């Protein structure tokens, strides 16, 4: 809605799509990505428990993905429209993980009483 009112008055002049990112940003991002990759490998050699290790690995992967989306894919500084569409898939995906609830709670039935 917000976007609509914005774009309609200034017809087709949403700025942002054509901005040029300086190469230094790309290189910095690249270095951080490499560091994070080393970190995620290093983390697997420490024992934080199954859940802990999994959480760390996924947290680092998510961070890396965010960096790629924000800098390599130039979403940071883009129009709100681009940001919205960049996020919508990642936001919807967790809906599907509601399926996990099914698997996690299947064994609960015998342990509680309804009568």
């Amino acid at each position, binding site marked *: *809605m917000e*976007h*609509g*009112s914005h*774009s*309609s*008055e200034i*017809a*087709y002049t949403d700025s942002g799509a054509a901005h040029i990112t300086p190469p230094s940003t790309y290189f910095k991002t690249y270095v951080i990505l490499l560091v994070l990759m080393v970190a995620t490998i290093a983390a697997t050699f420490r024992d934080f428990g199954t859940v802990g290790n999994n959480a760390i690995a996924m947290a680092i992967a998510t961070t890396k993905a965010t960096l790629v989306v924000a800098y390599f894919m130039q979403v940071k500084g883009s129009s709100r*429209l681009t940001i919205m*569409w960049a996020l*919508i*898939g990642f936001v*919807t995906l967790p*809906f*599907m993980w*509601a*399926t996990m*609830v*099914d*698997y*996690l*709670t*299947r064994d*609960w*039935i015998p342990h509680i009483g309804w009568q």
Partner: protein
Amino acid sequence: MSAEAIPPGIVLERESASRPNYLNWSHSVKDWLLTTDHKRIAILYLVSITIMFGLGGIAAMAIRAELTSPHGHLMESDTYNKMFTMHGVVMIFFFLVPSIPATLGNFLLPLMLGARDLAFPRLNLLSWYLFTLGGVIALGAMICGGVDTGWTFYTPYSSIYSNSNVAVTLVGLFIAGFSSIVTGINFIATIHKMRAPGLTWTRLPLFIWAHYATSIIIVLGTPVVAVTLGLVLVERTLHIGIFDPAIGGDPILFQHMFWFYSHPAVYIMILPAMGVINEVLACFCRKRIFGYTFVCGSTLAIAVFGFMVWGHHMFVTGQSLYTGMIFSALSFIVAVPSAIKVFNWTATIYKGEVWFSAPMIYCLGFIGLFTIGGLTGLYCSSLSVDVHINMTYFVVAHFHYVMVGGATLGYLAGLHFWWPKMTGRMYPEGWAKVAAGLAFVGFNLTFFPQFILGYLGMPRRYHYYPAEFQIWHVLSTAGSSVLALGYAIPLVYFLWSLKYGEKAGPNPWGAAGLEWTVASPPTQFNFDELPVVTWEAYNYDVPHENAIVDHSKNVLPDAEGASHSAH
């Protein structure tokens, strides 16, 4: 209509007959098959979809004929199973999902937005080719040999046990899925970026809103079913076992992934029909849709909540009790936006100026049948009632009320409404009313008995059934022949009207909306000069100040079939 009443930027094309339009600027087959014009692609889709609807309908009639007797003698069990599979697959993947978006949506989106074409015309053509290719492959497999899994392709039956052409059909559906994805992407980009200056989100026709929500569902849901069916395909050909319990796989996971798309898919089918209803209702009530914002909001709410209710298909599969409860509660909530729509439509009629044209009759039929379809959906989201009615004819009746009574009637309403715009010809109004009446009566006669059958416990997909159910099946079959007649008549008179129909002016209904400001049929690039919109959608309440058309000339006096063309 005086010249100064025309909003700036709009050129009314009164001399439509003299200028070449999108239909007649060229006649070569190549220009049709390689066209990137959204209007021609819409026509291509219309032809394909009509063929598909015919095939699905023939399968449906075969099923109904077979079920008149409890020991059906017309066909073998396997043949029967292949018939209902074909009916389901064709109707859902090749008729209902693409019906309104790919024909009416394709045709009208740029016209309503004030654009020359969709954002990606070549992708649009690709979408039709993918649809056709997928359709040919799937239909080929279903006709030569057949498929007997039901349209749901439940594993492990589809992945291991079925001896029919499942793999080839899945390839066809996989391809057709991409056709729908491409259409979705195209619509999203178009709606976001191709709106005419001044056409803000709050000024958009609700038809556009419905297609926006639909496209979002398509883009988010279809890939999931594509990958799921792809896994079944791989499993069937390579015998790996993600869904096969014999080697550690999980058939319930298939159902989760399948319904994650296939439940939202019913909203892919019904939302565009609701969009059509908004346009038709506003036009024939000469009134803005009541509660525009709420109807918009409910459209988006349906799209969002639609992704959170898939588990109500699985209350008896061994899904956990708690999951069932969550999905049931959310399913009750998703009923609310639908209720909002129905109430707002009803309120729109209040103080309107109701014109009982054929599209309006289809439209009123839609509201009524959708009300029943929606309310019976509550039975299916009720945990303990659903345990009884799940997989019975009750569910069959419920979704046919939504899909046939809703989506298909909406499609027909839209087709009649925009037929003059698409072809430049009027259909015969009297016959159209007869057809609408037949469809309504036939539909109820066909599917209402199935509610009773379902509650009695008649399971779906049954070839033989206990004799005590026969009376209801006979009624249903009788109704289906009336319904078939109701569908056949439009086919005849639409074809007839192409040659003999009365010429339609740019705006035979006196409707608001940018699509009615151009010639019927429109020229190749729709607008000579792109419009600038300064008014709200459905500005029927100010007919003599800044309306786009002159209502007084378009008003149809009384009897059907009388002169429409004012221009």
